[in-house]
């Protein structure tokens, strides 16, 4: 029940660049794979091509090893959950969930049994006779899931399934979806622009930008070892420092880090530093290291956000526990010594 996409390209007439260009990845059976990227990165186009709702200009889409690039959507055996639900307003919840079965000519008795099963799965027992207009946003979304799952699809495709809901419902439904997946184990592709959603739900993340795949990996991999500057900046918060290589070291506005291997002297580099990977100490205790001034300090609950003014004009955002800051006894305007626990450096030539 895996999905394989090979060299998929889709151009829209009049588009400046292809909506999807040479996209390849493999979504393993039984797992959740997230297609993650900003608006217009082509992730929805890829999902629609897998469903057969877009034709590929080039490339191949296979489901369970079977090439279905030219197969109409009716025969692909996929379940699709649309961003705006796309429920049939003139049908009841039962009618919606049973639609795919009715199309397949499943007998009424069998259909009813299967619909009951699904309503239970999505915790909507007793809502069968209601119309979509009588349901809340979260309930409508669950009907959409039940409808997509009713025909026992080989693959479940989710296009920004929670985008139209408010934050609280979104978090609830995310937990619900994880449970649902643990029960059904259906191969799932999830399109989202919300990195938190992707990192929380998916075993594998495909990061897309401007129609191309930028990185494929587990959620930890794309977070800890971003393959490109785009991935580093898109996933998680990061400070971006610019500088150049000098004698095997990268000089970045007063900070010095190990240069990437093979970077020649004078090469321009970007460094991505997560806010929680900055270490600070009282300046007097580390007089030799890089120094900065605390230009702003905001307490958010039990953590603290600091802005550090480096020797150059760069600012560094730092997150740390409030207790840790208290132990150091630092306040706004003080000089501190700065250390970097971990950073990703990219030489500018292959920036993208």
């Amino acid at each position, binding site marked *: 029940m895996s999905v394989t996409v090979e060299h998929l390209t889709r151009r*829209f*007439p*009049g*588009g400046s660049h292809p*909506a*999807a260009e040479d996209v390849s990845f493999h979504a393993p059976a039984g797992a959740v794979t997230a297609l993650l990227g900003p*608006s*217009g*990165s*082509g*992730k*929805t*186009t890829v999902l*629609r091509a897998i469903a*057969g*709702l*877009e*034709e590929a200009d080039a490339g191949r889409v296979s489901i369970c090893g079977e090439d279905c690039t030219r197969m*109409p*959507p*009716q025969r692909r055996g996929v379940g699709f959950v649309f961003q705006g639900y796309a429920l049939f307003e003139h049908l009841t919840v039962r009618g919606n969930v049973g639609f795919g079965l009715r199309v397949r000519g499943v007998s009424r008795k069998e259909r009813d049994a299967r619909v009951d099963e699904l309503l239970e799965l999505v915790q909507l027992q007793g809502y069968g006779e209601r119309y979509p207009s009588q349901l809340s946003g979260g309930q409508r979304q669950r009907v959409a899931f039940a409808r997509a799952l009713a025909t026992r699809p080989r693959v479940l495709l989710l296009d*920004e399934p929670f985008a139209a809901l408010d934050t609280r419902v979104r978090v609830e439904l995310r937990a619900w979806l994880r449970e649902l997946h643990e029960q059904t184990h259906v191969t799932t592709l999830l399109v989202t622009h919300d990195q938190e959603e992707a990192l929380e739900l998916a075993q594998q993340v495909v990061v897309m930008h401007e129609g191309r795949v930028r990185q494929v990996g587990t959620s930890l991999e794309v977070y800890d070892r971003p393959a490109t500057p785009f991935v580093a900046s898109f996933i998680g918060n990061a400070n971006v420092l610019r500088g150049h290589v000098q004698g095997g070291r990268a000089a970045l506005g007063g900070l010095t880090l190990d240069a990437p291997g093979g970077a020649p002297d004078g090469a321009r580099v970007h460094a991505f530093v997560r806010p929680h990977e900055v270490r600070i100490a009282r300046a007097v205790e580390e007089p030799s290291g890089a120094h900065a001034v605390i230009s702003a300090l905001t307490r958010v609950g039990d953590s603290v956000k600091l802005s550090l003014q480096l020797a150059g004009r760069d600012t560094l955002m730092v997150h740390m526990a409030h207790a840790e800051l208290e132990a150091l006894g630092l306040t706004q305007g003080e000089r501190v010594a700065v250390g970097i626990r971990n950073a990703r450096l990219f030489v500018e030539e292959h920036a993208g």
Partner: protein
Amino acid sequence: MSGAATRRVPSAVREPAWVRVLLIGVAVAFLGLLVVVPLVAVFREALSRGPAAWLDAVRDEETLSAIRLTLLTACVSVTANGVFGVTAAWLIARYDFVGKGVLSALIDLPFSVSPVLSGLIFVLLFGRQGLLGPWLSAHDVRIIFAVPGVVLATTFVTFPFVAKEVLPLMQSQGSQEEEAALTLGASGWQVFLGVTLPKVKWGLLYGVILCNARAMGEFGAVSVVSGHVRGLTNTVPLHVEILYNEYNFAGAFAVASLLSLLALVTLGVKKVAERRQGGRT
């Protein structure tokens, strides 16, 4: 997302080419037989005896007097209904009051009354045996079978057009800009003329155009109240009927072609106004 940027129909939900061609064919044939062919027939019949005969029919003294009456009637009823339409729309869109629902329903009423009934009610009110008939004849005022009757019936029939176009616009645009103008010190009239009216001008134009087309073309109601007095109470559409019933077909169609041109111009202006107003249909 990527799909929304370029809205196109994906192949999965598109009909095969032959179905598309068939449906377009059916639509074109239906409109062709019902609308295009009769329209073409009007102009063909009008010019069947050559342009000179057409010009003669149009320049005929009775035709000219019918045109004058139609212009006068349209002028009065469009102005009256235009002022009323904007006022009523402003009232309903901007204020809350008891009976607002009834008022908006009553404005639509003349749309659902048959043109013949629209004429009949004025006969019953102002006719010789009508409610006010005795009083009117005592004071030697003629309304029915005279110009005032024609104007009144036309105004009744075209009553809702402007209000119907302007009201939804005013409602959808809200009153924030008016409120802003008020806080800047504008008076009620200044708000109305400087803020409200410019915002609805294309809808107003659209309503006025439709109102005018109907006013100039109204037949049933006017036919009942006019008495068909040639040169006096004969409007252009009534004149078409008279010529037609006299078997002067070329003349009837020549005059009808004028009205058809008016209809085509109306459709053209309507399209422009719709586009300016922002894609409303």
